[in-house]
């Protein structure tokens, strides 16, 4: 009997969340962190097994009447997302070690740790599910712990932010429910018995209209999730009001489900419909890139600023997907990983800064580098990663996305490249306004300590990963590329041939 590694991987944090329901005062945080680390450990074992060529798929019938099964599987993209999740969760727990004690009215650290672990478990299952109904269930279920994380811990308007987040996500989820039910009806009609297995559904012969309708249901949900302009407004609100740790999980992990889903479901199940919406999606992506960047430049609130940079970055990811090139799609998958780490570093370092000063407004700072040099250095590195400086992993992925877009439509790449220029503007302006210049009185009064040991323990590994993948991107790309190739093969597109190869004849 084979070991169900993927189920175990997803269940460990859930078990941790259940254990944290027991009353315990002092040890709760330690227990929570232990479970997160155990999950990370199993995550690495799974990664080792997968790269070693082991078949980790599991499939057990679950609701025969619906054709749904407990079916988990892993591909290159799934593995990247799993690794991202299992690494970020302990980092978040460690970063919120002290914040969680003080924040929220009556909501203790135990609740925070429990919710984070529950969220980790559900997100892992989202990334592992090979069954559309299973995916949908976990996709929706992740909203509940996230809702309480935003609503229970954070700023004064957190309840409003939580409801806004939930309503946007639920709207997307319910639109997707329409397509999920449609797939059931179609598979029952065509196969005689329902099936929700991805592999089966890929064989459906959909007429163009049905295919387009069903694809749109998924796509709209993923656009809201990702989030893209014009349905991005919930993200800045949520990031501004929640704690930085929550924002990391929201932007770093949960929002990735959007781009993840576009590749795994929209492209894979509905290749024809996806190709026909390609141009529209590229335009939306460009709008997101530019709008996100401009809004970030104009943001007065640091957390809001990071949220807008993410809107811009998600634009890049979507651009990569709908360029329908191997470079673009691999670049996007790699981008999802890099963006997770780099945004996490940015949010958490800013979180350390904000917890000292007690304000998230840009104009509350000035000259921090004189009083907290290590913090300033970490912020600079995280910022440079966000603006995709060569040497950082994000540079590789952004370059691949642009290269993919260029080979399809040069003008698209040209417009998108504006986004990288603007990225430099928003990161460096923010850095200049807060870190450099003369030390203000408030900063001198409030920021009395530099990063302590625990905080360094959070930041150093994240920046380490970013630099490591920047220098040796092949480690990740070799795992990612097969997924990208498989997706494009299923979508029946081939990479464009360079000009002098074909048209010059």
């Amino acid at each position, binding site marked *: 009997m084979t070991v169900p590694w993927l189920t175990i991987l997803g269940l460990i944090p859930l078990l941790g969340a259940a254990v944290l329901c027991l009353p315990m005062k002092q040890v709760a945080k330690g227990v929570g962190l232990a479970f997160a680390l155990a999950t990370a450990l199993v995550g690495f074992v799974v990664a080792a097994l997968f790269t070693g060529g082991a078949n980790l798929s599991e499939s057990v*019938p*679950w*609701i*025969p*009447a*619906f054709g749904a099964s407990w079916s988990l599987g892993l591909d290159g993209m799934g593995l990247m997302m799993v690794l991202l999740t299992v690494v970020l969760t302990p980092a978040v727990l460690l970063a919120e070690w002290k914040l969680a004690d003080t924040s929220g009215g*009556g909501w203790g650290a135990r609740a925070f740790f429990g919710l984070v672990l529950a969220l980790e478990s559900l997100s892992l299952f989202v990334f592992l599910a090979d069954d559309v109904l299973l995916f*949908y*269930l*976990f*996709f*929706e*279920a992740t*909203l*509940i712990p996230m809702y*309480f994380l935003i*609503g*229970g811990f954070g700023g004064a308007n*957190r*309840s409003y932010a*939580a*409801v806004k987040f*939930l*309503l946007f996500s*639920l*709207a997307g989820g*319910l*639109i997707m*429910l*329409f397509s*999920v*039910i*449609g797939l*059931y*009806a179609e598979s*029952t009609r065509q196969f005689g*018995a*329902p099936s929700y297995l991805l592999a089966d559904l890929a064989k459906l012969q959909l007429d163009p209209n049905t295919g387009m309708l069903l694809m749109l249901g998924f796509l709209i949900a993923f656009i809201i999730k990702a989030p893209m302009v014009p349905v991005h407004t919930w993200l800045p609100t949520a990031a501004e009001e929640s704690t930085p740790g929550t924002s990391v999980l929201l932007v770093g992990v949960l929002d990735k489900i959007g781009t993840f889903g576009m590749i795994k479901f929209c492209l894979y199940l509905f290749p024809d419909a996806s190709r026909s919406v390609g141009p529209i999606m590229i335009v939306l992506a460009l709008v997101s890139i530019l709008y996100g960047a401009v809004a970030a430049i104009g943001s007065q609130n640091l957390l809001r600023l990071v949220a807008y940079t993410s809107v811009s970055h998600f634009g890049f990811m979507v651009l990569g997907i709908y360029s329908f090139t191997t470079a673009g799609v691999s670049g996007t998958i790699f981008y999802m990983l890099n963006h997770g780490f780099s945004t996490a570093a940015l949010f958490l370092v800013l979180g350390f800064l904000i917890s000292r000063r007690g304000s998230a407004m840009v104009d509350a700072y000035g000259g921090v580098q004189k009083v907290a040099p290590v913090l300033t250095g970490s912020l600079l590195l995280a910022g440079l990663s966000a603006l995709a400086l060569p040497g950082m992993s994000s540079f590789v992925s952004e370059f691949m996305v642009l290269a993919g877009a260029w080979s399809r439509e040069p003008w698209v790449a040209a417009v998108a490249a504006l986004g990288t220029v603007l990225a430099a503007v928003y990161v460096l302006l923010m850095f200049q306004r807060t870190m450099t210049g003369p030390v203000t009185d408030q900063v001198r009064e409030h920021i009395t300590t530099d990063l302590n040991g625990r905080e360094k323990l959070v930041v150093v590994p994240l920046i380490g990963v970013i630099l490591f993948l920047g220098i040796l991107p092949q480690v990740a790309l070799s795992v990612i590329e097969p997924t990208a190739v498989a997706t494009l093969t299923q979508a029946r597109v081939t990479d464009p041939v360079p000009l002098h190869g074909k048209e010059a004849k």
Partner: protein
Amino acid sequence: MALLEIASPTFEWLELAPVLLVLAGGCLGVLVEALFPRAWRFTAQVAVIELTVLAAFVVLVANYRAHRSGILAMGSIALDGPTYIMWGSLLIFGLLGMLVFSERHLDNGASVFTPAASSIPGSVHEAEALTARLEHSEVFPLALFSLAGMMVFLAATDLLTMFVGLEVMSLPLYLLSAMARRRRLLSQEAALKYFLLGAFSSAFFLFGMALLYGYAGSFDLKAIDAAITSPYYGPGLLYVGLAMLAIGMLFKIGVVPFHNWVPDVYVGAPTPVTGFMAVCTKLAAVGATARVFFVALGAERWSWQPTMAVLAVLTMALGAILALTQTDIKRMLAYSSIAHAGFLLTAIVGANADPGVQVNSMGSIMFYLIAYGFATIAAFAIITMVRNSAGEVTAISGWAGLGRKSPILAGIFAFLMLSFAGIPLTGGFIGKWAVFSAAWRGGFPWLVVAAIAFSLIAAYFYLRVIVVMFFAEPAQSVVVGRASGMTWVPVVLGVVASVYLGLFPGQLLDLVSASSVFLR
């Protein structure tokens, strides 16, 4: 001569035993009232309901395992798959609902029922009854009679028996609604409204029945079906009869535009009675409606499906939108129950009856009703526990900060709200999925779109309760009463079932799909 030879009526005692036991339990309850000393009555009544319902359930299960089925009692009751499932769920929900009736720990040893229902509110007579700590333990036999009526109503294969079931079910409910201990005027007003409108709708039912008799020459559902397939008369009688019959039945489900009684009665009736009605009446009425429309009028479905689809949309819309504006939790749940009636109606509109592995209309309806029933029973039981010195606190603002006062209770209630909203991993989600897919496969994808849109609106007001409970400053002077097992058992069972049906719906889905075929 054979002229006087009257065939003795066949009566399948064993097959009908579940209904008979419940009826007998009701009669026994009446005897208890007459023969037992006052101090013992309450306890004796509780024992009677528990024993009779459990006995009926055991017999039902034994019959099911012995594969007994058929048209019973000279062609008037069908013991088929849907009957088994719905009788079983009625017995379970009825018992859970009646357990909440018998809670006396929350209000200083008094039940939720008025000590003297016939007294004028605020009168000396009432005050005397209060001081003497009198009790109306008649509520238990009343509820048992109502339960028996529901069982007959949904299993009847001819309209006359159905009408008898309908009345036996309704009359005790009118009485029970009037018997709240607190806010008695409201309760009496609710009961009067319910009675008048209910009698009115029964008249419609009766009229429709008569016209259909005129059309088909029989009350039998099968005969009506036969008359539709090979008509003797023109369709005029049929259409008018169909419409009137539908009015009578949709009234009981609470479908717009026959929903007006629902909010007032839900608020005015004692909360345990509301829970009992919300689940059992809906279950019985939906079951009977499905039987009439699928068995008798199935051949005519092209003419009723469009109207029913429009009613479904109206019901979902009105329920979901008006629930947004409610400030009273019972009233909000009343509108929510209207919205749920709309969701259920989508599956009736879908009207697909493929047997086999897929979940068809009837299977999905039964699953939905069971998932909804567990959540509803538990939700109303919880409402009885949130109190201040004047009794239950039903204003939503009074629930503020409940998450801090009693995290477990608030957590359970939040979970039930999520199940109502149809969030995955709850029974409510699977139910919604099932009815929507039935509607889709019946050829109504647009109805699914509408239903999904209203689900989102509905999700908002359920969430609002969660927001108030967890993220608002605690309200003063509101406490969570210390209830006995009589309230906790339904709460715990309800929430456990909702979780179980959300995670492992397979067994129940297989059961309801396998038992979804009506005998004709």
